């Protein structure tokens, strides 16, 4: 850690040898030392985040193929095409993306919380269970899509055989536009619930023990203690995980792309998949950028709401 001190370029520049003031206070002319600490992050941000975002928004006003250098300024045409009903698949993808968020996030929260509550206690084998439920979180999208592809394989996948055994049509869930997205939901829940569990487990450790002890003395049952103490005390973590979950859901791409490629017949199209298809398959990066901008706005709206919830939850638990 001490090595890092010398590498702290911003400190050296403005403080000129003298250590920055420790007193937290806003000073008149001199910029706050706080800037020095955020400077590296802002620099990374400016290069790797601001630029791509700006470039994306900028190109959403152009029509071009991404190969030749010719770009036609088309103003808001991409947006009118997208929002004006000319693109039959855009709204389908919006619906699917929202559905994806609304379904997977609560399921992951519920499973994660359930696992955490059950596996926090004195249950025999809890370490094994924790490991099993967390396992999918460490796997890559390629591995996950590959393995689940064989579970859902319409010809001889395990899931398909089970359906056939109970008298189903034996087509496999990914084949039917009505069920394909739910199969993908399942994979997502499988993948992330263990991660949520881990965070809940950590948060449970932070709950003051005396709360439980006094409740036990009052004769509260296990279930009552979970409901009245654990769940409310975990609220800040729940909001944080909701934020991560929602943003993750909006960004979801690889597993669905490999598993269904948005099909059958656009049944599992997400906005992220449309962005990819329009930019690379259809050679319309400008239009893809318009969709990406829409996704950005959608994410921003949700992030605002959730950040507010977060500060509210943090306050209300104090």
């Amino acid at each position, binding site marked *: 850690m001490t090595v890092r001190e010398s590498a702290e370029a911003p400190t050296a520049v403005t403080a000129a040898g003298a250590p920055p003031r420790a007193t937290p206070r806003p000073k008149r002319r001199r910029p706050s030392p706080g800037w020095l600490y955020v400077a590296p992050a802002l620099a990374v941000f400016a*290069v790797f985040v601001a*630029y791509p975002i700006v470039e994306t928004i900028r190109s959403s006003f152009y029509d071009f193929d*991404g*190969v030749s250098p010719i770009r036609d300024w088309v103003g808001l045409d991409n947006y009118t095409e997208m929002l004006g009903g000319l693109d039959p698949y855009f709204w389908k993808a919006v619906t699917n993306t929202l559905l994806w968020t609304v379904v997977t996030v609560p399921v992951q929260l519920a499973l994660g919380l359930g696992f955490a509550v059950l596996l926090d206690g004195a249950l025999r084998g809890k370490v094994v269970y924790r490991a099993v439920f967390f396992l999918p979180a460490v796997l890559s999208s390629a591995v996950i899509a590959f393995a689940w592809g064989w579970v859902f394989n*319409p010809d001889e996948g395990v899931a398909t055989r089970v359906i056939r055994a109970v008298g189903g049509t034996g087509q496999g869930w990914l*084949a039917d536009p009505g069920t394909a997205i739910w199969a993908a939901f399942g994979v997502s829940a499988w993948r992330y619930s263990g991660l949520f569990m881990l965070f809940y487990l950590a948060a449970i450790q932070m709950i003051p023990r005396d709360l439980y002890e006094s409740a036990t003395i009052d004769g509260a049952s296990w279930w009552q203690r979970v409901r009245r103490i654990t769940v409310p005390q975990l609220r800040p973590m729940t909001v944080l995980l909701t934020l991560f979950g929602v943003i993750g859901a909006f960004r979801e791409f690889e597993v669905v792309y490999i598993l269904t490629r948005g099909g059958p*017949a656009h049944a599992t199209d997400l906005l992220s998949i449309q962005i990819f298809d329009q930019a690379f398959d259809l050679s319309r990066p400008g239009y893809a950028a318009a969709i990406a901008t829409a996704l950005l706005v959608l994410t921003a709206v949700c992030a605002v709401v959730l950040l507010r919830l977060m500060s509210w939850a943090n306050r209300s638990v104090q």
Partner: protein
Amino acid sequence: MGTQKPQTRGIDSQGLITRRTVLRASILGAGAITAAPLLAACGSDSGNDTGNSPRTAPSLVKPSGTVTLTLWTWAWPEEPLATELKNAFEQAVPEVKLEVKKFPFPDYETGLRTAVPNGTSGDVLHLQTGSMIRQYTQFLSPLEDLAKQAYGADWETQFLDGSVKEIRDSVAKGDPLVAMPQQSSIGGVLWVNRAVLAKAGGTVPTSHEHFVEISKELRSQNLVAATWGAKDNWPNTDYLVQFASQFKPGIIAAAEAGEASFTDDAVVAGLNYLKRTLTDQLWNAAPFATPAFPDAYDLFFNGKAATAAIGTWGTAALFATPNRLTDWAACLWPKLPDAPQDDWMGQSVSGIPQASSPSAVRPWRTVNVATAMRGDLTPDKQWAAWKFIEWSCGEAGQKAGSATYTPARKGIRPDGLNAEWQKIYDWHNELGKGAERREFAFIETRKAIESAIAAVCVNNADPKAELQRVDAAAKRARA
């Protein structure tokens, strides 16, 4: 391209942004940062000059030492064959060290799109004919003169009929030849697993009704009549091209060119027939959830399906199987119900060893892999790149590759063909005469057709309404 550098100027000048909402901050923040480059860009976007659109043959300089050449491809065999093929080339041209960057096919377009315009792609590229070559022509080197020097004035006739033309047709009028045919195939041929077919009478389908009967019989034994990997989309347009051509040859190509409408009765009839193959259950369970490679073809290779529509590209793979001489046969899709008589085959037969039906469905042709080189290479790299192309499309390279694909050069065949296999190879060359054009000039058109097929087959959408959308997309693509 590199003119739009990140502008951080806006960050501290944003008194107007309160911290009240992230929404306003993020939109306005990004907006303010955008404003400057955006305004600057309005006026001066045409200033970019690619400059790498050479129209003259490159000057090749043989390098003094070793040159490292990078090939970008999706069409390279798996290990250990990959290394064998690479070694074969390096032995033939010891001055060049070949590095192969392989992409999974679904990601290849993404790889090209990011790298080629930036001049950071591989030196040599494998490309598909049609829209892929068309898009990147401006970045590729003209090859016509080099081909003439290397193979002689009659070089074009050394390749399978129509394969060089296929590449010429891929580029806009007046643009040079920028790729050489490496693999050339006739597609839409039904390959037959004789052992499986034997369980349903043993004769190849001679009519649609016969096909349905075979399928029924096989399904009762947990087998399938034909495999279709509709999740990959490209087999779907292939089938539509074939089926529509039964009613009017060349109709899809004409419709794409704007000389006919996609709502033409022939296209509607072809699409309706495609739908009918599903309701008549000719296929494996759930084609639209099955990728063509490997799933659909694995069904066939593992003895679960009687037939599979593999192009001649599959010939080499079939030929590599242990009982190759007795296991396989080939035929064409039988004539469709209600289709007019179409005697395009002339002297040719509709199946080997048995005929399927007169007036069978036309196959299609494609140069499924063409090899090209970048236009902005240094002279010694140009030399190395051309050496690779010359070898790949020349006799030695084609022979070395014939273990894994169907060569584009005439007369190149793997060793050990018996009389029947000889006939199969000959037959494929003959079929080219009546074959339909497979590739599309514009991706938009292809994608619109894919969407229409999925909508009709999966969601029972109205074919005519869906095909109207294709017309609109094709029109926009041409504009």
